[in-house]
């Protein structure tokens, strides 16, 4: 049985259909990428899974449980967690406190016990701190735990977001453009790191990514979205040779479909670069 199943998922914003009758399945333990031109509905789809948006139609189920009517914290409790396209850390908290917030769900002592500082609280806090330190080490942030999250350099903030998500002990991790704004060597490190997450911790990974080198290198399957609809699905090799995908990225030559070409070409740097990589790879 697939870990995540989406059936006929639709999300509208006024007249705009951001995600249109999307069917999608995700196998346990796989690494799957969602790609597509800017505005294709990738992040909207993520937000539907994570509970940020209520879907306007269709259903999403995780490990057999329907989740499309749950609140984000309930979805987190089912062990789905995510990172964000524009890094969203708790900026005025220290790095290690960010990770500790991720563990919030596992800390059960009532507030009155915290006030009395009972032995249970002390032990729970000590264990939580140990785990948080371990997570910081795992993402390569040891020694920086006491720095305010907002003051960390960009790359460290991306890692800290992953550490915070890992602190919730997710089974499914949604990564929204994890390598955005990184240089090639950092991208390579992040790719290897994502693969390790799956291999070491058995976390299923769904990512949105523009950088084709990363996508092709890491994904076992790829789903291509365009105008909120699924354009193609398959292994990296199948996607690279798919006529419709190349068309969506480059536009249909000579057919007068200017807008598609403009959208692919005029979109921000990543997708323009992506277009060349798709054909060139």
């Amino acid at each position, binding site marked *: 049985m697939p870990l995540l199943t989406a059936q006929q998922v639709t999300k509208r914003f006024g007249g705009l259909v951001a995600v249109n009758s999307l069917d999608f399945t995700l196998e346990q333990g796989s690494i799957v990428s969602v790609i597509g031109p800017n505005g294709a509905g990738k992040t909207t789809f993520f937000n539907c899974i994570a509970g940020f948006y209520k879907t306007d139609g269709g259903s999403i189920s995780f490990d057999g449980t329907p989740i499309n009517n749950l609140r984000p914290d309930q979805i987190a409790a089912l062990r789905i967690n995510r990172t964000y396209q524009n890094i969203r850390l708790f900026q005025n908290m220290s790095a290690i406190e960010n990770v500790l917030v991720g563990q919030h769900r596992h800390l059960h002592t009532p507030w009155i016990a*915290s006030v009395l*500082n009972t032995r249970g609280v002390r032990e729970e806090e000590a264990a939580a701190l140990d785990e948080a330190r371990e997570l910081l*080490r795992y993402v390569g942030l040891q020694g920086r735990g006491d720095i305010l999250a907002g003051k960390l350099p960009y790359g460290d903030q991306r890692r800290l977001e992953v550490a915070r998500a890992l602190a919730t002990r997710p089974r499914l991790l949604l990564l929204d453009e994890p390598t955005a704004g990184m240089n090639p060597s950092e991208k390579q490190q992040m790719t290897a790191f994502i693969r390790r997450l799956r291999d070491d911790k058995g976390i299923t990974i769904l990512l949105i990514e523009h950088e084709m080198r990363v996508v092709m290198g890491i994904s076992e399957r790829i789903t291509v979205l365009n105008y909120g609809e699924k354009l193609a699905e398959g292994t990296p090799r199948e996607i690279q040779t798919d006529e419709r995908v190349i068309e969506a990225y480059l536009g249909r030559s000579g057919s007068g479909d200017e807008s598609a070409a403009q959208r692919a070409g005029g979109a921000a740097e990543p997708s323009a670069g992506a277009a060349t990589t798709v054909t060139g790879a």
Partner: protein
Amino acid sequence: MTRALAGPGAATVAPRVAFDWRPVVRIGAIGGAVSLYLCLVGIVPVFNQRPLIIGVISLGQTALVLSLFATGFVATRKLTGTAGARFLAGGLAGGIAGAVLSALVLVGSVVPLRNVFLNASPELYDLLTFGLGTSGFWAPLVTGIALGALAGGFSLLRPRLRRSLYVGFLSVVIMGLFAGLIRTPLLSSPLENLARLLFAPEGLTPVGAVITFAVAVALNEYRRTNDLGRRYRAVPSDRRWTVIAPAAVVLSIAVLILPQTLGSFFAQVIAIVALYVMMGLGLNITLGLAGLLDLGFVAFFAVGAYTVGLLTSTGEYGIAQWSFWAAVPFAVFFAMLFGAFLGLPILGIRGDYLAIATMGFGEIIRILAGSDLLKPLLGGPRGITNIPKPFDVPPDHWLAGPNQIYYIALAGAALIAFIAWRLRGSHLGRAWLAIREDEDVAEATGINLVQTKLLAYILGAAFAGLGGAVFAALVGSIFASSIQLIVSINVVALIIVGGMGSIPGVVVGAIFLIGLPELFREFSEYRYLFYGFALIAMMRFRPEGLLPSRVTLRELHVAENEQPPDAAEGALVAQEEAG
């Protein structure tokens, strides 16, 4: 180097190094406007009633001297030019400011300004002209030039010397302000002669001023040469208690004997400060930690106060005549109940809308309390009176009157500070902070928003309810008119001034915004003027508050020896190679 090239003479005669006079004139004009404002709004004449150094200078004169001197100092501060240029700029700016005051005297001698500005009186002109009357209209101009030039000279001093002088003068002003308050209790102590030497009934004696100045400068120099701050920081964290513990003991003894030595007026002021500390710590949970701006916070205070009133009053509206101690748990409980009751419907509201909604709740409670509808129950505008004191002691007992409230309020504030501190460090405290930082992400990280926000309201309300209970016992009565919107705003302001989310910040904020105005009741007319000025200055120069909360070090005390921060860079690479 510039000074060597162009001597003082060269600069005054022909300022070759382009002397930019425009900012100087602008600062002079601003200084003049400030001085004029101080005079016309009545601060100078009113403060003139009160001496700073007896027979030498009054508070009003101090204000004028300071504004003229500051004008000159600010004008020279950004100047990089020669010594002469500095004197010139200071004198020019001070002169312009002085000229404005001269103009006031001149105009005032011709036009009956008093019809419009009540404070433009002959007494003010006499003050400005050193008793020469309107014919001495030139006096402020000359004084301005002299003080401005003096400030120019002051800016030439070495920073360290300047700082010492600055500390000395500031100490004299502060001691002068508090002289009367300190003197009274000292007169009945073994230090009586010292008190008579240093302090007049109001203000310092000239000898006292000189001694204060000398002691302040000496202490400042001692602190600097020995660098006490660094020496304290050098103490390892597990040994710091050897420094802190004696200080804490001395402080607690001082706190305990304070009402006995300084008299009950001080005790009452501190009790009021402690009340606001309780409310401040309560709102610090909802606003400072969870980021929920509640402008109706006084409602919970009211619930606590009315509960104690109803349960303990021996007057006509009392229903139980319980003791204060039996009523307090109920006061806190009902406040919490109201916190939940008010919190539930507004949980989904964010930001500005939340502020407006909570303000509405606060007003509803105030109007209800004073309404005819609840008059049979709460006494309407006449309120509940005859609330007994917590300890029933004879009037000559050391716990009599406001003294016992002082101890109760302090104990309450200390208890609440302790609870707030523990909560801040708990996982609940972290969840609140996360909600303040980014509500959506906090929820996606697994925090139940409804539960967590509601707890913030309930606990915040509990603290305010305790404050209200103590207030009812302090005053002995509770009226609808005590539940003003301004109380809520005061509490918000003291949190902002102290530093959002910081527990010591709440205490400092309450001392500054509540304690000081209470101590200087005679200037209460200008209370909100200073209040507004202080708030604007805070927002402009120190928006993080007086004592912002600091990051608690959580990682390093275990991991500091393992790897230096730089090594972390390689970690991902290492992982990559391994994987």
